């Protein structure tokens, strides 16, 4: 049972690191939107040649 003196602090350290990782992810805004990422995953990218088209180019520099 003496192993408890090692395992318990270890478990606490592990929990603290998990909590810190969660806090970091939260502060970065990873849990702000729980809806779109699920949808985004469904749309895999297709690599085609990109081309730009601005239908109303500014007539004069502003």
């Amino acid at each position: 049972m003496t192993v408890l003196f090692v395992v318990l602090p270890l478990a606490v350290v592990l929990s603290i690191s998990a909590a810190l990782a969660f806090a970091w992810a939260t502060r970065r805004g990873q849990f702000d939107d729980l809806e779109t990422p699920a949808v985004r995953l469904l749309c895999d990218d297709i690599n085609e040649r990109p081309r730009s088209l601005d239908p109303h180019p500014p007539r004069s520099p502003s």
Partner: protein
Amino acid sequence: MTPELSSSTPEATLKRAVPDSLSCAHCGLPVPDAVVGSAAERHFCCSACELAHELIHGAGLGAYYERRDALPTRSGAARDTGGSYREYDDPSFRARHVTHAGADARLELFLAGIHCTACVWLVERLPRVVPGVRSASLDLGRSALDVTFDEARVLPSAIARALAVLGYPPHPSLVTQREGERRAERALLVRLGVAGALAGNVMLMALALYSGAAEDAPYAALLRGASLLLTAPAVFFCGSVFLRGAGAALRTRTPHMDLPISIGILAGFAQSAHHTLFGRGEIYFDTLAVLIFLLLVGRWLQQRHHRAAQGALDLIAALAPATARLVDGEGRRDVPAQAAPVGALVEVRVDERLPIDGIVVAGRSSIDSAWLTGESLPEEVKPGDRVYAGTTNRGQTLLLRVEGAGTATRLARLLESVESAQTRRAPIVRLADRVAGVFVIVVLALAAGTLVAWSFIEPTRALDHAVALLVVTCPCALGMATPLAVSAALKRAARAGIFFKGGEFLEALARPGTLAFDKTGTLTEGRLALVSFEGDPGVKALVSAAENGSGHPIARALVAAFGPAPNLRAESVREEPGRGLVARVAGHEIRVGSRAHVEGSSAASTLPWREALAAAAELGRPAVAVAVDGAVRAVAAFSDPVRSDAPASLESLRRRGYAIALLSGDQPRVVDAVAAELGPMVEARGGLLPEEKQAWVERARRDGPVVMVGDGVNDAAAMAAADVAIAVHGGAEASLGAADVFTTVPGVGKVLEAVVGARRTLAVIRRGIWFSLAYNAIGVVLCMAGRISPLLAALLMPLSSLTVVTSALRARTFDPPPREDA
């Protein structure tokens, strides 16, 4: 090209079933006959859709059309507003909306018309469409797009133009104003996560202690010490939310659920810490840690739903017309609407909303002010007439001289009165908080009683039993019952198309009272439809062909009633604002319009058409005469039809004990006719000014709660004065701002659903409160009998929470749709 014709008729949604060859390749709306090209592979309803289609394919994003699982809604069809969005490049705009992160600039835009998953895919490919955009990330729940771009390579206006062409007109969001709320939500989530981690570990240690695995003194001391160490941050970091709330409740002397929670947590923690340090006695660390975690879950769900509703309102606020097209010596340029100087000239094109109050200088047109005044018919305007911001130009391009802009408009003054009325409204004390007030007193009295009684029986155990009572009765289930039931109900309501701005309106809506309805667009369709046609049916096709290209509501009603005339083509169509229309169809001269308009040519007829027009006017119905080659052949009358679901829904509400009232700005005789169709009402009044509606609501509130249902700005003041305001779909942005509840589906049926759902939710909340009180009663009895142990407390508390959570989440509050026997 007539984009307004194809993309804004309500019938368009019904015509989705037309064959592919005749529906627009971009938006799926039917293609008007006039623009069907025979050789083209794809057809488009308007030039804007064609441009959007070309843009999407040009950027190699054609897969959008295969991915989408829903067609754009009426407002989502590509409608190139033709705006230059030049004001986005203005330094004052940048200062307000653009933030900087390193070399990149960030801009958040609300997008109108986001309707399916393919929209996410398409919009997030923005960097391919506009070079210089680094990334675009859409928040589907809020319809907000976060754009990161290189300011040196691309201007904000170019981004906005590209989005508008794709069919998602952008509106700038004031993301900086919401930054504080977002940070608060994240902070709560961090607390929730930390509380979860701590509770899990403390529970494991408690398990070892309960099972007797750590009988030896050093191990027991280790586990108890570690529990204390882990519970301390749970109480003072994670639980600070409740401690602060309790402090505020004490200072303001208002009962609040945080107060009994904090008393239980602090008493339990203090005693357990004392017992740990002295190495004897019972500890409740596991119960406390789990309690804090569960309560935080409830609190977080509550906050999240509040933010979702807030986001929807931000979106609506951003839709108000923000720019004015200024005309001066240098040409036309867009300026922020509030910066338009008095006396300047502003141009407003067809189907655009007026950004300012002003006087018409040039152009004759019809102005649709249903939004502002509730008048269902557009008003004809000519040079010299006064027009107001927020109304829509329906006829032709107008040139206006600015009289008032920004806060000086009639619209702004109306909104101001809404705000002041809102602040006057007394806050609704929530049911759970009222219970909490009594709860605190009862629990403290019981704890004191236990302490006194046990000090006679067994003085050393008296304090233990009293503290155990405080811990066991700590209202975890009670604290979760309301937030969980409310958030589950709000989620179900949102799925049904009903959005509540806050949970307290569920409670207010469940009480029977007076339901005051606006007429136009709420009980009626908000558009004209043909109600009678007398005369020669043979002219129908000719009329339809002549009116096909016009945007006038009467023309739209005629075309909708008679159907398209594919074989006939109208020539030399001329509209005379306020009078009617002249055209040549198949060699005949067709005149459709007022008495004066038709009499101008000839009045020969076998019909008593003058009498028919007068009879329609008597009923408050607009009517037109149809003349073919100078002879009047038919008379058509129109009205704004009552929604098909309205009579049954009102009857159902009446049976639930609500009194129905009808308040309208429309002509009294039209209101009387509508009221007659809808069954008994306590009052049906027409010709009311916004101020009179507000006064009526304030008077009615003396006799009981008043719910105002409307959709126009003219209702906004009345809505703010009411106990609960419901805005039905199709309504004005500002009324949604004043509304507590709003629906995305038109009609009164949703009002009925909201009322029924609110009642069911309140029943669920009451059930949850009774459940948790029953569990607490068991706990109290055990404590007073001195038979409680930490293990029993640790079992009883989550068990009661589980019952309440299950009951709250499984309750069918807003779905399925209410049946008549419900």
